[in-house]
């Protein structure tokens, strides 16, 4: 509710500006990168790429300077606190790794470069706005902002049918889901009369404390609103019945963009859901835990079964990301201090292991000979030992084998759920992750123990399949055995960053979990 006296507060504008400085830096740089298009000389070289990296560095710097403070900006629609800081760091890392990965990949295609990088930066800024927004309208606006950049990036490979098709599907479905989101917000507003999340929180707490079991129409409106709102967010989190865009969009998009969607979009969506859930949903007047319980189980099971059946590595990772969303949801259901901090830990771990896996996928796509078919991964363990070893590590982490961050993430999330007595849920999640190990390890087995016939097939007459056909389809393929694929430094940097954090979070999780604990405690510090 607008409080006129705030307008005259001298610090109001400063506070407001201060709360969005990290986002503002990224947006300003995005515009600068965009303006490079006007100067042919500047836009042809690597300038956009370096500028984007610098902007992310600056933003990170400001976050570090501001971290620890809690700033309410713009009548409380933006809240900058330690919770946001944790996620900002995750999102910025996701953007940073995506930009590094894009360098050589995008050069392969005849597409304008500055726009691409500026779109990535806009995406990063929108995600940051989303995780710090504290107002239903702000949530809707930033989700739309984020989605639109994602739609454009998905269809960025002009002339490539799969990319365009994926973008269109994503766009139609996304708009559909956004309708639910805004419709849900309307109902929530109708029921409570508030847009600010804190105010809605206090409204519900008030009702709950008065013990009003039947508060009539308000409850029905609120429930419909919350369910529809949940649908809108579940779409972004790609939970089971609302996941259908995920495989097609992940598969069709340029691989760095897939990585961006799998890491950035996912953690932003989960973060805002976590914020809203802890404030609004987490009152058992609606039985939302039961609904989430079912969504989690359906997502894991569907994701794992579908991943098992897919032979394209990008689709496999897409399905596995649906399953991973199910595991992350277990932490939110588990709830409480430990559950939420476990969720944050898992999200950060997920960024690094997924980005690492996608970087490896890009390396082999760049070789121009390797399709995205898993069969083509036969025997690369001997040809590219370091890359294959890194891929093995990331896959083991996704499968949740000890010494990796994935294991510690699952450990925290599941133990929080056990603590809240969701034993059946954890049991099903355990069975699922045991089952999921099968298809992750299947890839590792292919890399190190190829069948003879497959190896021969991969050595002879390899044609570049998959989505990146476009211009070079039908190009005569060289003998794979003699091609000395040069691995770009940028991709190796990505792999080493991801490897470092995946290992560090696996062997020294205490560092990160303490950080997550701090962030979570600021969530309740209203």
């Amino acid at each position: 509710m607008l409080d006129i006296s705030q307008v005259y507060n001298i610090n109001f504008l400063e506070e407001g500006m201060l709360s969005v400085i990290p986002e503002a830096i990224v947006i300003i740089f995005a515009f600068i990168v965009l303006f490079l298009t006007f100067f042919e000389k500047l836009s042809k070289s690597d300038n956009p790429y370096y500028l984007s990296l610098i902007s992310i560095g600056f933003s990170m710097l400001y976050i570090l300077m501001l971290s620890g403070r809690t700033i309410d900006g713009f009548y409380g629609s933006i809240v900058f606190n330690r919770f946001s800081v944790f996620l900002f760091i995750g999102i910025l890392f996701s953007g940073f790794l995506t930009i590094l990965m894009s360098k050589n990949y995008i050069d392969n295609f005849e597409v304008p470069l500055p726009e691409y990088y500026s779109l990535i930066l806009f995406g990063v800024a929108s995600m940051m706005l989303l995780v710090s927004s504290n107002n239903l309208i702000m949530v809707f606006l930033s989700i739309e902002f984020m989605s639109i950049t994602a739609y454009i990036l998905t269809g960025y490979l002009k002339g490539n049918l799969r990319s365009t098709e994926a973008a269109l599907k994503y766009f139609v479905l996304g708009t559909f889901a956004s309708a639910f989101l805004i419709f849900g917000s309307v109902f929530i507003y109708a029921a409570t009369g508030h847009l600010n999340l804190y105010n809605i929180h206090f409204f519900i707490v008030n009702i709950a404390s008065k013990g009003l079991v039947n508060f009539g129409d308000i409850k029905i409106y609120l429930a419909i609103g919350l369910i529809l709102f949940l649908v809108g967010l579940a779409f972004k989190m790609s939970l089971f019945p609302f996941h259908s865009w995920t495989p097609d969009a992940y598969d069709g998009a340029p691989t760095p963009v897939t990585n961006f969607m799998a890491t950035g979009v996912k953690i932003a969506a989960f973060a805002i859901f976590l914020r809203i859930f802890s404030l609004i949903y987490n009152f058992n007047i609606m039985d939302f835990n039961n609904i989430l319980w079912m969504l989690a189980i359906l997502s894991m099971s569907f994701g794992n079964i579908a991943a098992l059946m897919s032979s394209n590595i990008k689709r496999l990772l897409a399905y596995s990301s649906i399953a991973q969303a199910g595991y992350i949801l277990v932490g939110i259901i588990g709830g409480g201090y430990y559950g939420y901090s476990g969720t944050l830990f898992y999200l950060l771990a997920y960024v690094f292991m997924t980005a690492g896996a996608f970087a490896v996928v890009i390396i082999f796509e760049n070789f121009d000979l390797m399709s995205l078919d898993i069969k083509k991964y036969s025997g690369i363990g001997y040809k590219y030992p370091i890359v294959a070893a890194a891929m093995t590590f990331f896959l083991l982490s996704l499968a949740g084998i000890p010494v990796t961050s994935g294991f510690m993430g699952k450990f925290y999330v599941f133990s929080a759920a056990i603590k809240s007595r969701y034993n059946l849920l954890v049991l099903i999640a355990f069975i699922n992750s045991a089952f999921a190990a099968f298809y992750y390890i299947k890839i590792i087995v292919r890399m190190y123990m190829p069948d003879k016939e497959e190896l021969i097939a991969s050595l002879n007459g390899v044609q570049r399949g998959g989505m990146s056909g476009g211009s070079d389809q039908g190009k005569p393929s060289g003998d794979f055995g003699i091609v000395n694929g040069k691995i770009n430094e940028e991709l190796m940097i990505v792999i080493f960053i991801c490897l470092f954090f995946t290992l560090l979070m696996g062997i020294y999780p205490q560092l990160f979990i303490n950080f997550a604990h701090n962030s979570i405690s600021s969530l309740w510090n209203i």
Partner: protein
Amino acid sequence: MDAKFIITWLIPLFPFAGWFLWGLFGKYFKGYSGYIASSFVVISFILSSILFFIVSYTHGFTTTLYPWIHAANFKAGVSAVIDRLSVVMLVMVTGVSALVHIYSIGYMQDDKGFARYFSFLNLFVFSMIMLVISNNLLLLYVFWEAVGFCSYILIGFWYEKKSASDAGKKAFIVNRVGDFGFAIGIFLLFITTGTLNYETIFKMIPSIPSITVTIIALLLFAGAVGKSAQFPLHVWLPDAMEGPTPVSALIHAATMVTAGVYMIARFHVIFSYSQFASEVVLTIGTFTAFLAAFIALTQFDIKRIIAYSTISQLGYMFMAVGIGSYTAGIFHLISHAVFKGLLFLTAGSVMHGLAGELDLRKMGGLYSKMRTTAITFIVGGLALSGIPPFSGFFSKDAILADVYNKGFYFAWVIGEITALMTAFYIFRLIFVAFFGESNLDPEVHVHESPKIMTIPMIILASLALIIGFLGIPPFNNSIFYSFLHVDFKNAYNFAPFVNSTPWYILSLISVLAGLIGICTAYLLYIKKVVNPETVKNIFKPIYALSYNKVYIDEIYNFIIVKPVLGFSNFLWKVIDISIIDGAVNGIASGFAFFGVKAKRIQNGMLMSYILTLTIGVAALLFYFFIR
């Protein structure tokens, strides 16, 4: 971040870095890996010595590298307890390891797995250091298994040889039996005390019902029986001699096999509060000492003779910890590490000189050809036989005197008989191999080993000569005793002294036993007063029993291996192929069925996507309203 912290964690860091380097980049270093690996271990040894002086002049401390897992009451960190017990062990482990590393450079010179060998040897040293300094049960268990793994992989180092890889597997599987008990013991300890930290556990032990303490102690002892090759799980150690000889010296004589003794000394509080468990330890130790010495009397493979003598000496150590004389046990552990490491290295030198020959019947008269080896071997043999002033005399007699003075007369008598047999079999080996007429294969060119191998042997021999003087004035007021016994002050004194027989009488008996053994060997094999063949024919059944290792392998084969194999065959043919494979294939086809369904959901049609989404929304709303 003080000096103690840095020194403590640098000690395991160097061998760890070595493992990493030779494991990944071994082929780039070629022959240098041996020298650098050795220097890494030497640095660890120097740091350990510094730590030793810090601890002896100040006091012990605990230091944490990092808190590893911290969830509710389950706290496990990578942290070390540095007290007098662990520094003594550290100095011994790194010192013997350094000498063995240097020796290995010569011994493994032309092996194609040179870098691999040093990589695993460094990994072993790292694991052993961590095992010694860990201050919680989880870390202990992790490295307890890690040293077992290194032992397995180094026994089977020449994996092309079937006997070597079989021996590795045997060691691993037999250890599994003990470690199963050990793991359950740890779980039980965690459940009863709710913590993994040693100090906290020890404080709680007196208030725990004695029956629980006894069960825990027995389960932990099962682990020690496996690792330290005590009866009935001793069968793996003689076979483990298939590995390279330096490995036998380091892992299967000096360090890893003594981990069981160290573990009991470390958990002395638990064992001392359970008299029954301690008596079991004493009984098993005494019996094993006797049994192994008995088997060693008639063997012909020189490495196996020394292996059985290791088992027998470990039995002495268990006797010591079984009667609560923990310092005596650790003292014998240290002095045994020195002289047994020496015996193995010299045996390796003999093998090196004879192109891999191990059979005693094909040796003889080596003294003139390999003088250094022979003299150092004799020093080791004298130490093993307990002849003063060599180290074995002080350490073994400390144990036997305590056994007598605490009133365990039967065990004492067995111990003295074992001492006699020990002196006999080791001098039988010495007289046959180094003196007497030569039975050498004439084609073998016998030569002394290179300097890089003999120098470690000489160092160990001089240590075997002087280290015993830590044990003066004999026994319970010696330098070593007064240094170490402060660590065992929390032990419950369950076996008080009942006699105070002075040390010179008891040592006289022991020395006499040793001399009788040596003289018998001298008369039989040098003077040939009686032909050994006649003696053999007189005691035919006993000879056969000893020569066939009391048929224990055969008994195990009949009772355990055969039924297990039969059962496995049944499992494979009936359960696995028809039932489990059937079920798995059934499940797989079931999933394939679901997968096809899932694919139908994901058919690429926008309309059907919107339909699933809408159905989802409808289902959620429906759920809410019917609830």
